[in-house]
């Protein structure tokens, strides 16, 4: 009985993944580089691409933070569902809001 209980406890012990220090340093450096690139990009006039480029760099940085600093890369599938779901919801906000902005100029009666 005692063995069974012990086995049961081991089976349900949380799996802890220890991330090597060099990964944290590499991610930090990548974030620092991202910040510098954002600044440099802001000095160049990319026309309509000014905002998208800044957003793409910011998104990459956010993904790095979520995956490594928030440990999502080693988390359960439920955590992945939660994270992906959050971005899906952000997508709903963006897509349906832009459905308004991008079609305002269209006219029913010309």
């Amino acid at each position, binding site marked *: 009985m005692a063995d069974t209980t012990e086995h049961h406890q081991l089976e349900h012990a949380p799996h802890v993944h220890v991330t090597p220090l060099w990964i944290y340093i590499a991610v930090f450096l990548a974030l620092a580089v991202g910040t510098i690139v954002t600044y440099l990009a802001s000095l160049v006039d990319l026309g309509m691409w000014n905002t998208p480029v800044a957003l793409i760099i910011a998104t990459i940085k956010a993904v790095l933070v979520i995956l490594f600093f928030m440990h999502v890369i080693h988390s359960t599938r*439920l955590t992945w569902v939660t994270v992906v*779901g*959050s971005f899906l*919801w952000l997508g*709903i*906000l963006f897509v*349906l*809001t832009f*459905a*308004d*902005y*991008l*079609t*305002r100029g*269209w006219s*029913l009666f010309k």
Partner: protein
Amino acid sequence: MTTATLHDVRLSGAASDRNYFNDEYGALSWFLTKDHKRIAILYLISVSVLFVIGGFFAMMMRIELLTPEGDLLTSDTYNKFFTMHGVVMIFFFLIPVIPAVLGNFLLPLQIGAKDLAFPKINLLSWYLYMLAAGIGLIVIVTGGVDTGWTFYTPFSTQYSNTHVFGTTFAGFIAGFSSILTGLNFIVTIHRMRAPGLTWYRLPLFVWALYATSIVMLLATPVLAITLVMLMIERTVGVGFFDPALGGDPVLYQHMFWFYSHPAVYIMILPAMGVASDVVAAFTRKKIFGYRFVAFSSLAIAFLGFLVWAHHLFVAGISVYSAMIFAFLTFFVAVPSAIKVFNWTATLYKASVSWQTPMLYIMGFIGLFTIGGVTGLFLASLGLDIHVTDTYFVVAHFHYVMVGGTVMAYLAGIHYWWPKITGRMYPEWWARLAALLVFVGFNLTFFPQFILGYVGMPRRYHAYAPEFQVLNVLSTAGASVLAVGYMLPIFYLIWSIWNGRPAGKNPWGAVGLEWTTSSPPPKENFHETPVVTWEAYDYPGMMKAMGETQHV
């Protein structure tokens, strides 16, 4: 660990003298408590005080509207009163009331847990709520705010000289209270269900709280960031919503309603959960189509995120976008209707006990249906243009929020009062109050449908003389409603000391909360329960009781 059978649930066990009320004494034992039941009581007292304050503003508005002239309140004061009525009632009463009071108290009890997953965060939620409410009250006594509870720009950022910053800051903090409660509930439901309590054995109140919590987690952060953007634009002048600064006022409305329309479902979903539990208990039947009712909560939570721009039909949004949002709004009615039809099917050929909780739920079903169907009127683009910003809209959302959420809350507080306090409330007085609330509510708000349809605009302290008769009716109804709402405050408090002892299961109801003593002990259950029965297995329970009596 022992296995409790349904039969045991109904018949076994003597009540323990120790309970969460008398386990510890002193003010600190309450203000530093981590017991979900005590935190629920703290919320109960807080939201009740805020409800009375919000109700005061409502009554003052109704008295002003007795006559066509603006003779009691100036237009500026009237603007502040309807704003503070909305802010207090929505942020500090309707949103927290069922999750934070009934949900906090019942969720661990209904799933056989000792507490929520994060008891300290639960207490933090209450302190955040109190901080927000405190700031809100300071705003009220120092001059108030006049923007309407929606804080529409550019009025709120450029022109209003009232306490916009303080009020939005209070809303921002209240949002975090809501987020933490939702997070706590989701983790608790996933991780702390008793052995044997599978998802399809959960009470529908738990399903409803789960769906509500998802909405709280996904929508509230958007409100927080929107209010922060508003505060930054108002104080520092960074342009988000002001066209002069490169912003767009309609963007504010998009972002605000991305939260605030789902917030309607934060208010109504838990109410629907209460309705399911009460209908089953007072018809002695399983809820018809249990899985459809459970998944319709999730469907409402999802679809509720896709309809927000129906609040913007006359704000200048694209007509194509408006058509999409109108269609999606019609779509969200489907899962709501599934619930109403399934409750009705449960009632069919049932032997209904007409006690107070059931009276309130019958009111809830009827009033919510009227509120929902008039919502479809408003989703229709052409009709919406006719009735936007009229009393038709006021009547519609009061039928949903007050006729729906408040009625269900009153049903729930009566249904679980014996569990919360260990005492029965006086049934006669409670039925009288339920009747007064139903009559008073309809007398208050039904005339407003007509007023709105014939053109009376909302948010004015004066109106054309031809609208007076219906306004007098509405104010008379509000007086009856106020009496109906005040009565429970008195007799429920009275019953704590003078009510008949309830016993562990006065309704003969199925559910883990009814297997423990009333009031429950601090740890909820003396032994971890093991669930071997389906949700709402009233037929099984009655069969077991019949066999016992036969023996």
